[in-house]
């Protein structure tokens, strides 16, 4: 009897689901796939029209008009196109208009900017429009789209929902910030087109959603259409209220789509892939602490990542025994009370002999990076540790010497054995296990509970007006958010959060002297064999501005003492803006035209991103050494 009931229920459910998913004789996903094919056709047709106009030497006004038509067609294609083949969008269609080094090829080949953003600059920059230069870019875009037509991308119900949710993050971080329209400023219209497209595809699922929760489904579509209406009314880039967009439209839609996805019976990404990306679509809010899965950035196996291991890593972090003179620990330069920085322009070197070459960066949320150090030379947290160990100005030792020392402490031996139960006593203290422990601790330094986060998530109702204004400036007029991407506010690129960016700002050696000089540090171009190119000279990793109130002084060289001074530097247009000769500055060199009070608001916003709760405690004692009893007097965190 029981079996029959289950059987009947299952069959009934299946029938219900089938009928709900088949309004006509076609599946929703099939309809969406057909629409997407047509969107690609329209995109290509519009690019061809643009080519025709440029070839026919049409007036620039006409070309601009057609470029906007191309953008609209692109934005209709974008949410599924990006989801299905993000690499082709980045490489050929809508990548940043910067020169790049060709990936995974022999030698070092420079790839010139291509795609829509390059066109945006070539068409809209005053005096830049040259037909002969723009035609090859259009032609290459056409070829790329033609090749896409001969590549098939499946659309499933799962894909529609997950692509739409991913697009909401893209729209918030790269769309309405103006990121992908560097000169034309078409971003609000773009965002409206994106939201309309998502709305039209989701409408196919309205009935399904309504069966799950009618009121919630109505709310979802009301929020979508209100968002669209708001964008339509708001044609002014500077005055668009991004906080309102985020809290009233984007986040609610992001959350409800997840709710309906879960309850619809449509499979979710974790059922189709064991290899999940850092972006966790099980999060309910773009500012949720679990939006990104930190384990996807480190090599530490999940099953080893225990509170015990984090605690061992913390002990090692504060233990000067790791350095050659037993006087310095990781905490020497990464002091928890200063947001894990050290408050000085450049950290002290071993033996107080001068300084290391750069400013100590914060470790909070540093795990969310593709690459490490100001010059991006290390691929992983684990590599980063090795660089510090070997550096004669830092720990000035080798991993083998560290292992020799640690093995002389029976207390350390026990701690390692507890964390690595499968190792025999002999090799529990190993190269890999030391780096596992430290990276477990460093990657546990995560904080998303600042006053601003709590407000965005609706956990607190109050947020000062200056903070709200500051956020809107940060994400809009001041363009901070086009490099310090939300919600990390770092150079880790949304919505996939798989890549770390660097920028050439033109930071001076010392901004407080009359005769300004460009800081001589070559950055990325001085670090890696395969990055020895002009456009990486003086290029440095874009850090997070979270906890910036605690991490003065600023920039890779610690040259700026106060946030006001940093903001003033940006407001002038970086190095070029303050009169330096910076050949490959990636920061726009024109003024941001920010007023004093606007700068104050932006700083208030950044100060509202402070959160170190639960991260700053130090171990009370360090493990003892059985024979070298003189080592037992070493100070937690080191002498300096």
């Amino acid at each position, binding site marked *: 009897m029981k079996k029959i009931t289950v059987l009947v229920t299952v069959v009934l459910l299946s029938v219900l689901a089938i009928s709900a998913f088949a309004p006509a004789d076609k599946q929703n996903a099939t309809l969406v796939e057909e629409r997407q094919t047509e969107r690609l056709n329209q995109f290509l047709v519009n690019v061809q029209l643009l080519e025709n106009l440029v070839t026919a030497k049409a007036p620039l006004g006409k070309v601009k008009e057609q470029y906007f038509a191309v953008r609209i067609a692109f934005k209709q294609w974008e949410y599924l196109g990006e989801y299905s083949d993000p690499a082709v969008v980045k490489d050929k269609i809508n990548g940043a208009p910067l020169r790049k080094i060709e990936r995974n090829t*022999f030698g070092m080949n420079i790839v010139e900017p291509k795609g829509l953003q390059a066109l945006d600059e070539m068409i809209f920059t005053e005096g830049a429009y040259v037909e002969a230069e723009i035609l090859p870019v259009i032609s290459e875009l056409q070829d790329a789209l033609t090749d896409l037509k001969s590549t098939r991308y499946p659309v499933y119900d799962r894909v529609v929902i997950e692509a739409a949710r991913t697009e909401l993050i893209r729209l918030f971080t790269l769309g309405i910030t103006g990121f992908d329209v560097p000169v034309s400023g078409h971003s609000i219209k773009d965002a409206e087109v994106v939201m309309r497209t998502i709305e039209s595809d989701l409408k196919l699922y309205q009935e399904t959603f309504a069966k799950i929760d009618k009121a919630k489904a109505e709310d979802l579509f009301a929020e979508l259409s209100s968002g669209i209406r708001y964008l339509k009314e708001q044609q002014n880039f500077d005055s668009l209220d991004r906080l309102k967009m985020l809290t009233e439209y984007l986040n609610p839609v992001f959350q409800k789509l997840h709710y309906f996805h879960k309850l619809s019976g449509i*499979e979710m990404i974790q059922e189709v892939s064991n290899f999940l990306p850092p972006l966790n679509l099980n999060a309910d809010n773009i500012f949720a602490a679990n939006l990104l899965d930190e384990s996807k950035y480190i090599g530490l196996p999940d099953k080893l990542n225990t509170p015990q291991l984090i605690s061992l890593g913390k002990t090692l972090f504060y233990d000067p025994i790791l350095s050659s003179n037993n006087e310095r620990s990781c905490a020497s330069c990464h002091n928890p009370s200063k947001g894990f920085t050290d408050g000085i322009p450049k950290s002290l070197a071993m033996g107080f002999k001068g300084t290391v070459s750069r400013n100590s960066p914060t470790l909070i949320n540093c795990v969310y990076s593709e690459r490490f150090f100001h010059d991006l030379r290390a691929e992983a947290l684990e590599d980063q540790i090795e660089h510090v160990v070997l550096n004669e100005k830092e720990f000035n030792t080798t991993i083998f010497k560290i292992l020799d020392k640690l093995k002389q402490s029976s207390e350390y031996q026990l701690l390692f054995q507890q964390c690595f139960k499968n190792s025999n006593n002999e090799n529990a203290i190993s190269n890999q296990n030391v780096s596992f422990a430290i990276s477990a601790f460093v990657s546990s330094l995560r904080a998303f509970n600042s006053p601003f986060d709590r407000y965005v998530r609706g956990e607190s109702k109050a947020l000062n007006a200056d903070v709200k204004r500051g956020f809107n400036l940060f994400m809009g007029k001041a363009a901070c958010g086009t490099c310090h991407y939300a919600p990390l506010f770092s150079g880790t690129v949304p919505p996939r959060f798989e890549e770390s960016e660097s920028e050439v700002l033109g930071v001076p050696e010392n901004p407080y002297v009359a005769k300004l000089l460009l800081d001589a540090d070559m950055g990325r171009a001085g670090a890696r064999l395969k990055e020895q190119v002009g456009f990486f000279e003086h290029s440095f990793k874009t850090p997070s501005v979270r906890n910036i109130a605690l991490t003065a002084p600023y920039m890779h060289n610690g040259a700026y003492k106060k946030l006001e001074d940093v903001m003033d530097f940006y407001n002038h247009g970086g190095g070029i803006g303050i009169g330096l000769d910076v050949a490959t500055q990636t920061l726009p060199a024109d003024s941001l035209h920010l007023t004093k009070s606007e700068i104050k608001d932006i700083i208030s916003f950044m100060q509202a991103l402070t959160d170190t709760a639960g991260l700053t405690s130090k171990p009370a004692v360090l493990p003892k050494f059985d024979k070298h009893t003189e080592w037992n007097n070493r100070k937690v965190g080191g002498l300096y």
Partner: protein
Amino acid sequence: MVTLLSDFCVKLLKEMKKLLLLSTIGVCAFAQANAQIPFPVNIAPDWTTQTVLMPKSPLMYQNIFIGGLDTVQSTATYGNPAGSAPAKQWHDYIAFVKDSAALGDLGWVVVNHEMTTKDNKLGDGGGMTTFRMKRTTGDKLEVVNQTLADGRTGKFFNVDFANTVGETGMNCGGISKAGRVWTAEEWMQSSNSGIYAGGAGYRDTTDFVIGTTTPAGFPGFNGKTLKRYQNLNWMVEIDPKNAKGIRKQYNWGRAGWEGGVIMDDNKTVYLFEDGSPGILGKFVATTAGDFTAGQMYVYKHDGASTKWISIENNLDTLVNLNTVAIRRGATMFNRLEWGALHAGKIYICETGRDNFTYNSGNALNGSISPSLTDGYKIRYKIVNGVDFPGTTADAADSVRKGRFFDYYGRVIEFDPATDAVRSFLEGGPYTSTSTSKDLPYYPSKHLSNPDGIDFLTIKGKTYMMVEEDLNGTSYNRMPNGLTQTVCELYLLDMSIVNPTINDLQRLSACAPGGEITGAVQVDQKTILVNCQHPNTSNVAPYNNSLTYAISGLDGSDKLSIFENQEVKASTFSVYPNPTARELHLSKSMDVAIYSMTGARLKVLRNTQTVDVSDMAAGTYFIRSAEGETLKFVVQ
């Protein structure tokens, strides 16, 4: 470190790619309305009596050598005493030198390290590691302790270049012939400041004088001076048993050599350049086995009287071989990688390149390889649904003008008897019959950017082992939405006439971000494979480059794709394949996997294979969109 792979690791290493594909692979068998029927989240678990059995895999996986973790023994270098250091990374070519003095002895293994970095103990630049293996109980392998002639004792030994032939760069491919081993320094360097890399690369940029180091002199060139960067990018012979460089092969020319083949006459050497344009070289030794004297040539497929352009044995010419060759009209390939000899023909991977242009080569005088013209015509047919209407010259012209985006590359065949080149197996996400009207979704068989190649003979049957190194993920080189690369090692039964991608059998896949490379047969039981530069964020040990062994190949018919164990439901059949840890379905369809208690675990759409390599031993259900269910047991 020698450990047996746990099931967990097997999952990661061997079949990673398919785990990603679960939702998306499969040739689209239905024109439309294919599925989207939601599989219930829960089902009643006892509907069927039909049981499919998935036996344990006959193959055993074992990690042999892990970069960054295993310790190599170094010679005294740069004033530092001999000692030990963590091994370099980016394992690429593997040479196996058979050397069995006692029972169980297998021989020497040499691994190239493509990563180029400063190193106070191992020497700057790239590098190589050599070690000796034996077989212990079962098929298990062990790296044995050795003491070399120079007194170094340990398991793994750094091949000393710094004190012998001068540092090397990016040791990638290589040649192994009759116990001798050459390593290829692929990446062409063009300045001392470039190799210096702000002190992170080659720190010694003084001139290099040939013949002043031991034993690296070269007849005819001793005393000649090269700028330091010019002493990179040669083929370099090494002594695998003593872990030392022997000589840079200056007379073969300086180019972006990636691989080569020495013919059975032990005189003729073919060399393959990774470049676009890349060239095909030939060297013929005067005396068999003595490669220090002979004649160098480069290939020109449309040469009037001969297809080989002679290159004079002059260091100034040899230092700039690529430019000289193309100026003289050499055939231009698009990134040649490794090659291997089978039945008198040479098979070479032409890996392809996204940003493909021959502008520099066109300006000089190069001619377009027939392999690319073939590739262009095949793609034309797929995109347009009709044969390319023009002449071969027209097709070559389109390639020359940069109208061919070579995303996928191909395996080419070169016949030394006729000196003819053709595309042997064109890469891509297409079946042999695909046209624009009938394109597949991301197919289950899919070859992109082939790089490593060698042959494997088991029980008299020869297979091509072809290994991917994806240049990117776009245009379906990876399934829907994935930006991480996963590269695969495929087998191709060489008895198949006119093979297509559908004939490839997947043997292994590399951890994400890594290039699978180096596959070399040790004996009837075992091959060695490298996983090069996997993502550093992969779960350890797959966050480091590593060399692993696949053993158990001598089991009966283990390389056949289907085990004859069909289990039928009325609408579909399942064939378990324990070698690949896959369930093969009778047709492309949507299926879901349920646990023993009836909870939905996985949903797979448009698929013809179900990967179970990540599934714990136990009982599961597989259910079709029509609602039919079969039980399957993973042992």
